[in-house]
């Protein structure tokens, strides 16, 4: 029995944490955010040097096949990366750009599609995004609307899915395709951009038609859910660390507020909820990697549990700051909103529990 990260995974975590602190610090992320209102943020995803830096860390293509420039690793490795990105507030929609979109392409794309897109994902030169909705196809062109699509402002191409079960179909739609229009949302999490796509007779390249497509879509969506849960975990873990640090220097009543039992208990309770969430996240990734029977159900329970725990966690750590926690300047608000996005995306807690019940 050996439940935990491998030495390689720990190395990946430590080196990425160090690199993010040096090259993509929260201060740097903030420079790109501070001037925008919520949702109108500029994105590191559009920042070529940052993406190439991340690529240099080998983290964009973690799960992609080695033959296409990826690292050929598993979801547990992606969880390690996503946790760090949540901690550092990295402005990348990792769950979509590096997980669901390229994995679906890797699983169902033609040899040519794979070789023309996947290496670019790993090297940070091409940005993919994943979208699901109801589309009509006519003569290889698509019409319809896709909502809640990550990176609509910057993605080079969208892997889009329509239909369920044996009716499921998937295509690749390039950003400059005729009749494709993107519209930006203002979502509360200003570190990741979200929007919608309008397609009208937009040329699209179909991915392979197969009976397995729906199963594959479900699988890559599950991987994205695990990544979102890891992102929330990372956000909460760092938010707790910073709160503990702040409480250790902020003085009221002639003592540091960390010395009040109320504050200690807030932190201890948060910690006691977060640590099992970390473990559950690791197991869900492992189960997914090994295609265990309980994988899908575990993912649904993880996504729901992560939503509840992380919402409480950021709510509590923000309170540790008193009035300071309510300011824009305090980093807590950024984690608070990141967790808020992760909570609703790809299934809120109620929907995920309902799904788990049926699995």
């Amino acid at each position: 029995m050996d439940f935990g990260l491998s030495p390689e995974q720990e190395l990946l975590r430590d080196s990425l944490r160090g690199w993010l602190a040096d090259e993509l610090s929260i201060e740097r992320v903030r420079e790109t955010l501070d001037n925008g209102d919520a949702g109108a943020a500029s994105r590191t995803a559009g920042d070529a040097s940052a993406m190439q830096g991340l690529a240099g860390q080998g983290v964009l293509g973690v799960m992609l096949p080695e033959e296409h420039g990826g690292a050929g690793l598993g979801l547990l490795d992606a969880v390690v990366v996503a946790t760090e990105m949540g901690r550092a507030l990295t402005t990348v929609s990792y769950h979509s750009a590096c997980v669901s979109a390229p994995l679906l392409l890797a699983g169902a794309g033609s040899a040519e599609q794979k070789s023309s897109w996947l290496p670019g994902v790993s090297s940070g030169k091409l940005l993919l995004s994943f979208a699901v909705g109801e589309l009509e196809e006519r003569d290889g062109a698509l019409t319809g609307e896709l909502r809640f699509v990550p990176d609509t402002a910057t993605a080079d191409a969208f892997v889009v899915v329509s239909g369920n079960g044996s009716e499921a179909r998937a295509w690749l739609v390039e950003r400059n395709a005729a009749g494709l229009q993107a519209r930006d949302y203002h979502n509360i999490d200003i570190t990741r951009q979200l929007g919608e796509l309008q397609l009208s007779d937009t040329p699209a390249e179909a991915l392979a038609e197969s009976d397995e497509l729906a199963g594959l879509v479900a699988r890559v969506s599950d991987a994205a859910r695990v990544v979102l849960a890891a992102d929330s975990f990372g956000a909460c873990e760092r938010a707790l660390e910073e709160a503990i640090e702040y409480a250790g220097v902020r003085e009221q009543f002639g003592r540091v507020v960390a010395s009040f039992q109320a504050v200690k208990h807030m932190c201890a309770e948060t910690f006691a909820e977060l640590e099992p969430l970390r473990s559950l996240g690791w197991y869900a990734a492992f189960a997914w990697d090994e295609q265990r029977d309980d994988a899908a159900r575990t993912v649904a329970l993880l996504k729901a549990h992560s939503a509840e725990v992380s919402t409480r966690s950021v709510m509590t750590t923000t309170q540790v700051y008193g009035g300071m926690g309510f300011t824009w300047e305090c980093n807590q608000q950024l984690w608070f909103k990141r967790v808020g996005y992760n909570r609703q995306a790809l299934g809120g807690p109620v929907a995920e529990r309902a799904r788990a019940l049926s699995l």
Partner: protein
Amino acid sequence: MDLSYGPRYEDFRAEVKSFLADNADRAPRMTMRVVEHSQEVVDWQKTLIEAGYAARTIPREYGGYGAEPDLLETMIIAEEFSAARVSQGAAGQGISMLVPTLLEYGSEEQKRRYVPPTVNAELLWCQGYSEPGSGSDLASLSTRAELDGDQWVINGHKIWTSTAVEAGMMFILVRTEPEASKHRGISYLLVDMDTPGIEIRPLRMMTGSSDFNEVFLEDVRVPRENLVGERGQGWQIGKTTLVHERNFLGSSALTEGMLAACRKTLAAATDEQGGGNLVHGDRLMQLEGRALAMKYHGLRMLTDRLKGRNPGAAGLITKLNGCQLNNDICSLAIDGLADYGILYRGSPHAVDDGAWQKQYMFQLGMIIGGGTAQIQKNIISERGLGMPREPRATAGS
């Protein structure tokens, strides 16, 4: 216990209903914002006071309607306005916190001068209590005021001052007796925000707006008669204001409005948003149960107050429970909108322009402001339940 209203009160209810039927269309739209000061609000406030539905028990000479306190009338007004979803008038820090404080401690001159424009919603106030070094430990505040002839000269720095930009006046706690003990050295002053030496720097909140501020005071000269109560009595007076603030922030009128809005949001949610979801229905009912308990708790507290009884520890829980409840209501509304719940103001498809996300954050702010939840629990256990204070801190044990 007697919950029947009797014929006299049913007549009164009919009057309120008919007032609402005739006038509701003039009421400003109900928003979830705490402070509003448009002409529309001022006009509506005037209409309400004339009819006796706002400032009801405030004496006429101070701009109120001058009715005798009557619990059932108050209840009936609240019930009917809430059922009709019509605003019960302005409710800024002046009306909710300063006015009751002035009525209790103010001089005759102060009451005549400040209460009428405040209840009319023409004069807005801000609360200058917190300082960078003094939040939970408010009594340690260091902004000081010294008497120089007929004027107080104030120097210091206030922070988290809500609506300082919009306010015409500030009620402020300052240290006037540096030799006295921490709690005895504080006085309560009224400051015109246009006085030279006041600099306001807006602070951006997590919501993205800048509704609270830093206020710097440098040699700010205030007439001597702007002292409320006695020198050194400021802590006692300031605490009275805080009690009003806490009852206001946790008031069930606020909760009921939010609950009604949440019910509406859930009912309007489409299938795609998880509309008609039984679990959301269950959560809504849980919240309604909590809200109902707080509503009748409020009725009980009001009865105690009107009969001059001390409600004891049970009177200290309103803010702790009410603000958490309000935050939980927002959280449910967001969940009820599924993906759409994360859209914020200005976004396509945002339900109510993202008001639920904003309120969700704002209600977190209310859990912190006016004395944090942790401080409320200290007050309940120490002052209410008679438990000893925490011992002084020792390094690691």
